[in-house]
C-alpha cells in the first residue's frame, strides 16, 4: 500500500497554512518553467532555478541560494514527475495527484448525508470547503493530457452550486479528461439541480451511484438514511432523462448479497438505461471494521448469487463489471465481466497466492483485506 498521507521529516519555505506543489524530475526543464515547481531530487543532481527541492531522508547541504527544501521519508519515493502534492506548515504531506497512475481521484468533502454501514471514508460533520478550494487549484496543476480523474467524498453534491462550478472548472482546464463522480445520487432527485449538472455538458462524465437493494427498507438501512432509496432512484431517473451517464454501484456484503438477483432484476426492469453496473467486493476499512459482524461474508459463500445476478444483467444487455474480487472466488461464468479494479496504491496479494498460475489475470485484494482479514477459501490456480 502506498503511503498517500504522512508527515515530512522537515519542511521549509511553506508560506501559507498549506500549499500545493507540482513536482518535476526534469533537470533540464527550461528555466521559465522552473518557477512554481519543486524539483524531486532522486539522483543527487541539483539543477538551479527551482524554488523548492524535495529530498529523501536527509537534507542536502549545498542547495541553491534561497531555495527551500522539504525532506520526506523513503515511503514517498514513489513520487514522480508531474505529480502534485500538498505540503503544510505543520509538516503534513498529502499526495493529490500521481501522473503515472490511472486511479487518481480528488476527495472533495468528508461530509455526507448517508452513513453507510461499510463506508470506507467515514463522514465528518465539519465545514471542509477548503477541500473544494484545494481541488480547484489541483485541477489547474494536473497535466492537460491526463486521461481520467475521479471525484469522491463524502458526498460531493452537498456543495450544490459549488460542485457544479467545479465540474465547469474541470471542463475548462481538462476538456478531454474522462471524469467519474461518486455520489449517492440523492441530490439529483431535485430536478433543477440535475438540470444544472447536465448543463455543464461535460463530454465524458459519468456518475457512479450506489443502489444496494430492490427493497427500499434494506437500501435505507445499508446507507442508514430514511428515504434515501426513493431519492436515489428519482435522482437516477432525472439524470437519465437528461441524457447523463449513470453507473450503478453495488457493494457486496452480508446485507446485500442474498437479494442480489432481485436487485439485478429490478435494475433490468426499471433502470435498463443505465450505462454500467458495478458489483463490488467489500473493502476492509473505515466503518466496515466497526460493523464486521453485520457485513462480512466470505465471497465463496455468495458465488451462486453473484453468478445468477451477472447472468441476469448480461441477458438484459447491461454492461456489467465485477470489481474487487479475487479470481478464484468467482465462478467461471463471471469471468467475462471480471475486472481487475483495485486502485494501484492499495492493491496486494495474499501469501497463499504465490504459486497461483493466473495471478496476472487476478485483481487480488485490498491492502486493508490483507491486513484485517480475507477469505479463507482462496485457492491458487495450479
Amino acid at each position, binding site marked *: 500500500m502506498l503511503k498517500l498521507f504522512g508527515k515530512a521529516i522537515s519542511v521549509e519555505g511553506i508560506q501559507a497554512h498549506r500549499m500545493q506543489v507540482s513536482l518535476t524530475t526534469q533537470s533540464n526543464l527550461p528555466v521559465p518553467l522552473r518557477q512554481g515547481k519543486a524539483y524531486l531530487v532522486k539522483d543527487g543532481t541539483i539543477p538551479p532555478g527551482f524554488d523548492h527541492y524535495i529530498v529523501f531522508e536527509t537534507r542536502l547541504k549545498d542547495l541553491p541560494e534561497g531555495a527551500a527544501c522539504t525532506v520526506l521519508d523513503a515511503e514517498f519515493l514513489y513520487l514522480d514527475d508531474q505529480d502534485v502534492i500538498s505540503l503544510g506548515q505543520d509538516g503534513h504531506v498529502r499526495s493529490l495527484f500521481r501522473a503515472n497512475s490511472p486511479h487518481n481521484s480528488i476527495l472533495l468533502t468528508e461530509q455526507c448525508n448517508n452513513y453507510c454501514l461499510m463506508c470506507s471514508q467515514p463522514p465528518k460533520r465539519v465545514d471542509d470547503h477548503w477541500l473544494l478550494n484545494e481541488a480547484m487549484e489541483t485541477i489547474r496543476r494536473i497535466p492537460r493530457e491526463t486521461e481520467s480523474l475521479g471525484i469522491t467524498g463524502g458526498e460531493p453534491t452537498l456543495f450544490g452550486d459549488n460542485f457544479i462550478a467545479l465540474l465547469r472548472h474541470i471542463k475548462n482546464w481538462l476538456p478531454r479528461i474522462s471524469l467519474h463522480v461518486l455520489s449517492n445520487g440523492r441530490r439529483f432527485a431535485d430536478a433543477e439541480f440535475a438540470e444544472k449538472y447536465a448543463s455543464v455538458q461535460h463530454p465524458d462524465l459519468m456518475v457512479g451511484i450506489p443502489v444496494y437493494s430492490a427493497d427500499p*427498507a*434494506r437500501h435505507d*438501512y445499508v446507507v442508514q438514511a430514511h428515504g434515501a432509496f*426513493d431519492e436515489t432512484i428519482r435522482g437516477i431517473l432525472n439524470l437519465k432523462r437528461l441524457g447523463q451517464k449513470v453507473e450503478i454501484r453495488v457493494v457486496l456484503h452480508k446485507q446485500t448479497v442474498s437479494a442480489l438477483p432481485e436487485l439485478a432484476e429490478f435494475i433490468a426492469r*426499471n433502470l*435498463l438505461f443505465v450505462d454500467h453496473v458495478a458489483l463490488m467486493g467489500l473493502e476492509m476499512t473505515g466503518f466496515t471494521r466497526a460493523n464486521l459482524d453485520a457485513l462480512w461474508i466470505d465471497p465463496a459463500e455468495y458465488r451462486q448469487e453473484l453468478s445468477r445476478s451477472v*447472468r441476469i444483467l448480461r*441477458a*438484459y444487455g447491461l454492461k456489467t463489471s465485477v470489481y474487487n474480487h479475487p479470481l478464484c472466488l468467482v465462478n467461471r461464468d463471471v469471468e467475462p465481466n471480471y475486472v481487475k479494479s483495485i486502485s494501484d496504491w492499495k492493491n496486494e496479494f495474499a501469501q497463499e497466492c504465490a504459486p497461483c498460475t493466473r495471478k496476472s489475470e487476478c485483481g487480488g485484494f485490498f491492502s486493508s483485506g490483507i491486513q484485517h482479514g480475507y477469505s479463507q477459501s482462496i485457492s491458487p490456480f495450479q
Partner: protein
Amino acid sequence: MSKFQPITCYTNQTSQYELLPFRFEALGDDDVVVTNAVGEFSFLPRPKLEDLVAHRLPPSDPYYSRLRAKHFLRESGDQAALELLALKTRTKYANLRNFTNLHLFVVTLRCDHSCQYCQVSRQSEDKAAFDMTRETAEKGLDIVFRSPNQAIKIEFQGGEPLLNFDLIRYIVEKAEKRNQTESRNLQFVITTTLALATDEMLEFCRDHGIFLSSSLDGPEDLHNKNRPRPGRDSHARFVAGLQRARDIVGYDGVSALMTTSPSSLGRVKDIIDEYVKHGFDGIFLRHLSPYGFALKTKSYQAYNVERWLEFYKEGLDYILELNKQGIRFTEYYSSLLLTKMLTANDPGFVDLMNPSGAGIAAVVFNYDGDVYASDESRMLHEMGDSTFRLGNLAKNTYEEIFTADNLLTALEDSFTSSVPMCSDCAFEPWCGADPVFHHAMHGDAVGRKPESEFCKRMMGASKYLLNIMRTDQEAEEIFMQWVNRC
C-alpha cells in the same frame, strides 16, 4: 458503536401501506400470481394474498419487501414507485404514437401451391384477374408515405408474390426513390415459399436489402402433405431455395414460419428438429387461424386449442432441453408473451397488441385495391364478411381509410383495459385485443371470453410459462435471453 441503527428502524413503523393496482390469478390450489399494469408479476401463497389485500401483511415479511420492490404496494413517501410505473407505462405504449409501421401489399392471389389451410390463394393463370396493378400499387405507396412512422415496413404477400415479381420490383424501386426525400427507415419483406425464387430475384433482394420470410412446416413428408404443389416437391424446393437465398441474400436475410396443421400435432419434435437441422435459431409454433379454406375444409376444427396447447407445451419443453444443451433456439410465440412479462417493452406484434394493431400498426392492400385492417380481415372478406374492409385505394383518402367507423369502433370496443373479463384478467398486461378474430367467431369485436379460443390459448401458454419460471431458474434465465435477443 451505537451510531448505527438496526434494519427495523428503516422498515415501516406504522405497518400502513397503500395497494397499487394489480390483478391476480390462481395457479393450482395454493398459489396465485399477481400482476400489475406494466406486466410485472410475483408468486404468492394464497394466504399472503389475503393478508396483502386486508392490509395486514407485516413489513418484516419477505413477501412485503418483494411486493414493494415490484410496485404492488407502496408506503407513504414512496414517490419513485409511481415514477417508475409511469415510465414503464409510457415505454409499453410508446409505439402507439408512431402509428402504422407494417404495410402489406398483396401483389397477387395466384399461387403454385394449393395448401388446404390456405385462406386466399388461387390456382389460376389469369394475371389480369388476380394481380395487383401498378396504378393500385402507386396509390398504396401514397398511403404508405402518409404514415407518420419513421420506420416503414413493406411486406409483399400473396398468393405467391414471386409470381408477380415485376410489380415487387416496381414498388421497391418507386419506394426507394420516394425515400430519397422521405428518409424513412424503410424495410422490405417478401413472404414466399421460395419454390419459384430465381437467382435473379434473389440478387434483386440482395441489392435492395429485401428480407425473405419463408415457410417450413416440418420434415419432408409433413411439409409436402401440408403444402401440395405440382410435382410434390415443395420441401425439396424450399431446401434448395433456402441454400441459394442464404448464399445470395445472406444467412440472416431469410427466416421461416410454420403452420400447425392437424398432421403436425403429434410431430412437434420432428418439426423443431427440422428447423434446427436447417440452421434456424427459432421457431414460431403457430396455430391455424379459423379463416378461409381452413374453416371450409374443417381443418381448423380438426384440433381445438387444448390440443394445440399440448403440442405447444411439448414443443416448448423440447426447445428448453435444446437450450440447456447449449443450442440457442427461441420459441417465438413464448418470446412475445415473455417480452411483456420480463421487460418494459411491447414487442409490437400485431395480433397481441392493445389497442389492437389491426388497421393502426398494420394495414393490408389487397390486389384489387381494397384496404383491410389485417391479413385476417381480408380472409374474412373472402368468406363474405367485409366488416374490416376499410376502403379502396382507388376511391378513398388516407383520412377516410384510417378513420373508418368500423375500424375505430372495433378498436375501441376491444380495448382490453376496458373490455369485460379482460379488464380484470391477470394476464391482460401480456395480452392483446383481437377484434377481427372475435368478430369472426362470435360476431362482435369483444366476443365471449369464456368461450374464446384466443383467451384459452393465451392464458394456457401464459400459465405454462409462469409455471416454468416458478420452478426452473435455468429456464427462466433462458427466457431472459430470448426476450433480449434482437
